């Protein structure tokens, strides 16, 4: 293998050495339980609160507003279920979300529907932007929560969260945003967004898997998801995963410090998009040109299927992902691509490249060298391509 290009940073990111170095003392010597009163416990407790404050500072929040969880999915589940159950006590049994949320949020909503809540799934335009009109039409004084992701994991659309939050608050509803894909890619500030809750995950910003957090604005009350021994001010049970929390604090500071570099990443993204579309006929960009995460490229290739493309790219040392059903084991291709109006057959042939500050121009050129012959090879094998060419 000549080169290895990791272009699947939206799935997970390489663990940073800086993060591991920061974690190491807490995996070895500093193993105390932050809840213990003795010296070992105090040492852990001080480190825990320091990490919380550092994360809060990045987000523009107060340290007391940050709660640690095991992952982004737990944060999503807690925000949605906790806010719904708390809303129900005030007679609010309606949730509004979008059709392009992560499955952690969508499946939590499906669970809430089974519990008797009503859920509205807002449509999106062809760029993946949530319909404000549909939101205004759906929201009422029965709405407990509006939940819309800050940026989409598949097509990179950045949603107008501040505008949505304002509408939610006008109707007395809470506003939650899943910022798992946004953190580290765009500036994220809870005050500027005006949200009541925000979910984030460590492994998308170079920590190991297994750590997440939920921002809950001071004064906002939601029900617990995990009851336990009073940790996290009684809101999330379970002895705190201190090494990973330290890792998360280091990772988020590192990510915020690197935000100026995202301008270069966005240029590399556009370089990839422009050159792929120019080099490969019958290809289209999925998602917006503007208002897109700087690392997200998602292109549909007609007449071929995505998993085959991924396998052949992998052989060339390029790691990517696809919205094809064949890669996810479900009957339908990506719900996000279908929501923006991409037909099934084209959604099967989609390729997502998610690049980062670690991606170089040489990496992009390598992708541009290897991708076109792979697409052509699969088209030469495809009966759909044969029919389409005969029709011309």
């Amino acid at each position, binding site marked *: 293998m000549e080169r290895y290009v990791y272009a699947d940073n939206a799935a997970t990111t390489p663990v940073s050495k800086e993060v591991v170095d920061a974690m190491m003392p807490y995996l070895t010597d500093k193993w105390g339980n932050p809840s213990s009163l003795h010296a070992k416990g105090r040492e852990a407790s001080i480190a825990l609160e320091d990490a919380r404050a550092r994360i809060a500072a990045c987000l523009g929040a107060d340290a007391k507003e940050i709660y640690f969880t095991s992952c982004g999915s737990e944060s999503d589940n807690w925000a949605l279920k906790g806010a719904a159950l708390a809303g129900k006590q005030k007679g609010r049994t309606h949730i509004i979300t979008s059709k392009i949320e992560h*499955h952690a949020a969508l499946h939590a909503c499906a669970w809430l529907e089974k519990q008797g809540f009503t859920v509205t799934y807002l449509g999106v335009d062809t760029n993946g932007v949530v319909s404000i009109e549909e939101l205004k039409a759906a929201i009422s004084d029965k709405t407990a929560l509006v939940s819309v992701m800050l940026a989409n994991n598949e097509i990179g659309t950045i949603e107008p969260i501040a505008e949505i939050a304002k509408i939610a608050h006008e109707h007395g509803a809470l506003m939650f945003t899943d910022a798992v894909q946004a953190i580290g890619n765009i500036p994220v500030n809870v005050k500027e967004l005006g949200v009541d809750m925000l979910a984030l995950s460590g492994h998308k910003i170079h920590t190991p898997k297994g750590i997440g957090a939920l921002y809950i604005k001071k004064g906002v009350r939601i029900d617990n998801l995990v009851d336990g021994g009073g940790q996290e001010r009684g809101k999330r049970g379970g002895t705190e995963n201190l090494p990973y929390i330290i890792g998360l604090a280091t990772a988020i500071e590192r990510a915020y410090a690197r935000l100026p570099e995202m301008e270069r990443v966005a240029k590399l993204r556009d370089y990839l998009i422009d050159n792929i579309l120019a080099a490969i006929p019958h290809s289209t960009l999925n998602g917006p040109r503007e208002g897109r995460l700087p690392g997200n490229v998602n292109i549909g290739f007609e*007449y*071929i*299927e*995505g*998993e*085959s493309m991924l*396998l*052949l790219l992998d*052989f060339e040392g390029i790691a990517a992902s696809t919205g*094809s*059903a*064949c*890669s*996810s*084991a*479900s*009957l339908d*291709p990506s719900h996000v691509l279908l929501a923006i109006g991409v037909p*099934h*057959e084209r959604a*099967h042939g989609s390729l997502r490249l998610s690049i980062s500050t670690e991606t170089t121009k040489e990496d992009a050129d390598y992708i541009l060298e290897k991708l076109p012959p792979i697409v052509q090879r699969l088209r*030469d*094998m*495809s*009966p*759909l*391509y*044969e029919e389409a060419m005969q029709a011309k």
Partner: protein
Amino acid sequence: MSMLYSEQVMDHFTHPRNVGVIEDADGIGEIGNAKCGDIMKMYLKIEKGIIVDAKFKTFGCGAAVATSSMATEMIKGKSIDDALTLTNKAVIEALGGLPAVKVHCSVLAEEAVKCALADYYKKQGIAHPVIAEAEALMGADHDHEHETTEE
């Protein structure tokens, strides 16, 4: 959910045997649909009841390509009657197994062979039960089984 492919599957996917078309094919079968993400088209050359050549084109995942490739290898040189007994299980075994979620791809390969043979009989004006079988397969809305687990 395991998506790991066997060595044989990867071999047949990366070096598929018999890709292409037979211009003067005696039987052509096509099954699947683009909406579900897999289509197989099979071309057969038949002489004196023996399949002397088989070629395919497939739109689909790694397993779909590999099962098409293996199925053509398994029927080449065989009699029509032998080819009609080809099962997806036999294709899976020959490939050293398939992930559970990919089993439907092997069903498609078996069906593509049947459809191509049905087309052969129709063109020859010979009545054969495989014609009705193939029509049922092509008429069905291709609602093959998928598991619903996700990562």
